Structures are given as structure tokens and as C-alpha cells.
């Protein structure tokens, strides 16, 4: 049986890679990819501890809802990125720096 700590080490590695992607990348789509990586890392934790909860499976059910919310978030975020692109003609986040409508 794989110890729970190994899942946690994998999850924190994935989470930190996602964090660095979110902070350093300029393209909005790549930033969204980093957010998805972080959500996946959180899901690995939930599923890893859900093994010891065979009766209620709270971790697995919660990670299902995380996946649902991630799908909704990706759809809305991409719609916003499309709108930003049609207005600013760029999808690089550091060029979107004015708040005037």
C-alpha cells in the first residue's frame, strides 16, 4: 500500500510548479493551465486521504465537485480572455494595464 505521504509530496510538487507558472507566465491561457495544475494537486490530496474513509468517501465526492467547479471556472475565464483579446488585441497580461472601460 502506497503511504499517504508520497501522495502529499507529489501534490505539493505539482502545486508549486502551478504556482510558479501562474506568477511568471505572461500569456493568460498558460496562467489558466497553471491554475488547473494547482486544482489537480489539491484533488490528489483529497483522493489520497479518502482511501481511509471507505464508508462516506467524503474526499472523493468533494474532488468531484472540485472538478465541476474547475470546468465552470475554465469556461468563464476563457470567455473573459476572449473579451479582453477583442478589446486590447493581446492576451498578454502585463499589457492589460488600464481600467478604463
Amino acid at each position, binding site marked *: *500500500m*502506497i*503511504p*499517504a*505521504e*508520497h*501522495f*502529499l*509530496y*507529489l501534490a*505539493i*510538487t505539482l*502545486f*508549486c*510548479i*502551478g*504556482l*510558479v507558472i501562474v506568477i*511568471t*507566465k*505572461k*500569456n*493568460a*491561457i*498558460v496562467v489558466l*493551465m497553471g491554475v*488547473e495544475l494547482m486544482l*489537480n494537486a489539491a*484533488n*490528489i490530496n483529497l*483522493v489520497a*486521504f*479518502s*482511501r*481511509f*474513509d*471507505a464508508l*462516506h*468517501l467524503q474526499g*472523493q*465526492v468533494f*474532488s*468531484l*465537485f472540485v*472538478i*465541476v*467547479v*474547475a*470546468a*465552470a471556472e*475554465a*469556461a*468563464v475565464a*476563457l*470567455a473573459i480572455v*476572449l*473579451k479582453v483579446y477583442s478589446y486590447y488585441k493581446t*492576451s*498578454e497580461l*502585463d499589457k492589460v494595464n488600464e481600467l478604463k472601460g
Partner: protein
Amino acid sequence: MEFAQLLFYFFSGLIVISALVVLFTPNVLYAAFSLIFTFLGVAAVYVLAGADFIAITQIIVYVGGILVLMVFGLMLTNKIDGRAVVTRNHNVFFGVIAGALMLLVLLLSISTVNFMGLDWVQSALHGGEVVRLSTIQAIGILMMSRYILPFELAGILLLIALIGSAFIAKQQAD
């Protein structure tokens, strides 16, 4: 070392390497393709943790849905002129510092806490309540009984997100 553990380390390596490719490649399309391997590897890790239904959902939603959506977004937010779509970096110093500090804090906290010695984990290990077989039936029963309200709310959330994103992204008549 059992076979399942070897598989776990293999897929962990796959996940970390493909995530690092997303981090280091300047080409956005390569990042999207590398993300496929990350998501598939995470699905395999779910299977090894006894969550087969979550793994299937991961493949359907992430690989089949979100990634296709991202490639579509990539197509619609760049001029298609034959050149590769590249992304540049900014805040590299602070990004690496923040990531490394986060990794350090989490590593320290995980290595000090003994998770396998927790009370409820130990009672599950000795009481035999550990997930060993498929959880599809249990999740189906739970979704229709104990978690029926969140289940319906998730449906409403998806409907709102569908309407909202279609409304935001529609071309406005000038």
C-alpha cells in the same frame, strides 16, 4: 516493493516532468500538449489511490473538455500567421522565490506530521475500512442520497457558467 508502488513512482515522474515542460517551454501549444500527459498521469494516480470514478471523470472533463477549450481559446486569441505562439516570462525572480518558499514550508510541515499515525487513519487501517475495490456504486448512492443538494447545486452552477460565458463571449453589434 510491489508493482502498484512502481507504477505510482512511474506516473509521479510523468506528472512532474510534463508539468515542468509546461513551466519551461515557451511554445503555448507544446504546453497544452504536455498538459495532456499531466492530466492522464493524475488520473492514473487516482486509480492507484482507489478512486476509479474520479479518474474517469478526470479524463472526460479535463482531457476531453478543459484542454480542448484551452486550445480553442489559444486559437481565438492569437493571430494565425504560421509562426509558433510563444509566451514570455515576467516576475521570474519573485515567482521562483514564492514557489521555492511554498515548497519548503509544505515539505517541512508534511515531514514533521505523521499522517499515517492519525487516529482515524489507524482505526480505518485496523478496522478494514480502506478502499480496495471500485467506488462507483458507493459514489452513485451517496450522490443520490447524502449529497443530493450539492449535486443539484453543481448542475445549476454549470448552467449559470454556460449561459454566462456564452453571454460574455458573444460578439457585440457595434
